[in-house]
């Protein structure tokens, strides 16, 4: 399920990022783990219950200014929907 632009995603219960000091950033969840690289890390660190999807999209558009803004929003919505289906985030 894709979120609305006004939705505020946050990590689901039992899901957390490993510590910043560790060499790879990994999203830990029940019996699974997701290695986060580049954009996926930029998205997940903003799923903190404070940023709306729209704000996350704006932040990504600044970070990846060479990409087409609409494309970034579409990819973001797809990725959030996948994380939601896997019960990694709530919104």
């Amino acid at each position, binding site marked *: *399920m894709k979120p609305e632009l006004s939705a505020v995603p946050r990590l*689901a*219960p*039992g*899901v*957390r990022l*490993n*510590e910043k000091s*560790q060499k790879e950033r*990994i999203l*830990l*969840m*029940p*019996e*699974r*783990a*997701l*290695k986060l690289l580049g954009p996926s890390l930029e998205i997940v660190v903003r799923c903190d219950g404070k940023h709306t999807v729209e704000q996350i999209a704006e932040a990504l558009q600044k970070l990846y200014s060479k990409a087409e803004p609409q494309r970034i929003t579409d990819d973001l919505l797809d990725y959030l929907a996948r994380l*939601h*289906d*896997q*019960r990694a985030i709530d919104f």
Partner: protein
Amino acid sequence: MTCLTIWRGCMISGRSIFSFLLAPLAMTETLESPLALVAELTHRCPLHCVYCSNPLELTSRATELSTEEWSRVFHEASELGVLQADFTGGEPLARTDIIELVHSARAAKLYVSLISSGLPLDEGKLGRLVLAGLDHFQLSFQGARAETANEISGTNTHLAKLRVLDWLKQHRIGVTLNFVIHRKNIHELEEMLLIVEEHAPGCVEFASVQYYGYGLANREKLLPTRAQLDRCVKILTEAEQRLRGKTRVVFVVPDYYARYPKPCVGGWGRKLMLISPDGVVLPCHAASVIPRMRFENVKKRSLRGIWEDSDSFRAFRGQQWMEEPCKSCDRREVDFGGCRCQAFLLTGDRAATDPVCSLAPARGNVDRILRELEETKNRVATDSIGWVYRKNPA
């Protein structure tokens, strides 16, 4: 209670749990870190489940690792690259130092799961476990109805488990319900799903009994029929759609009916280490059934030494050990020849292709078991055979 999904394996789509998102091992055979440490804290358990995957020879309380020894193991595991510690048993809550153990695993930067029957527990203790850093609670159920669950566990514990489920709602931790399913409770699937829908856990596992330990001893009464399995797949496929975004539905197939074997523990010595209550390190739960293999102990050697350089972990790593048809099979890096323990139990040859594989020379052994089931399913004979209940260690 011991019914882990990680070592068994696959979801409806056939993906193994850890291949989900982590990169698979490189073909170059570089040795990677284990991802999960299964800590069998004790073999003591208040339940006596007829399919318990603990070995028939249980470890006594007197030989269990101490709090300090476990703490050292957690730190060694974390340094080796392990991400998750799964506390199981027996019943991990039977350890009086369980809160300290959760705290020390979490202090070692591990993600901590409790794989539990939910007994013995009260609200206050659950709160202290969460405060100590528990990330995830997997609660087992033996059925949807008290009379069924109580018969399977040999105890009167079903209602107490439902209470634990209510307490869990007060905490923001991961919750998984685990129903071990088999011939005697698979008809309660819809009622199990009602419990799931009422409590909305993040995940529910419907784990078919696997035939090791007590499960093997009770196989004649536990193995579902083909018709039961077909009905189960239909119901769970619908449930998966209906619950999408609320509860993740995981189905562990009864592998006797599968076309290909499960990639057991993600491959021997590739993803997982299991430590028995007395410190013996195994590549999986059942590995101690394999003869002529010496397993090392964390009391005598570092976890890294055992992972990288022990005969037991190297025995079935890579492909050199494989026989045909595995050796030249396109799926040899998908399911790694299946389960070594099952190969030994059903063929007597620990390097044989897992006989549940449709390509295995010994597939006939499994087909014969299924054929006998179909021939006898309508007779009352199996109901008159008593259960072999799990005992408790000294």
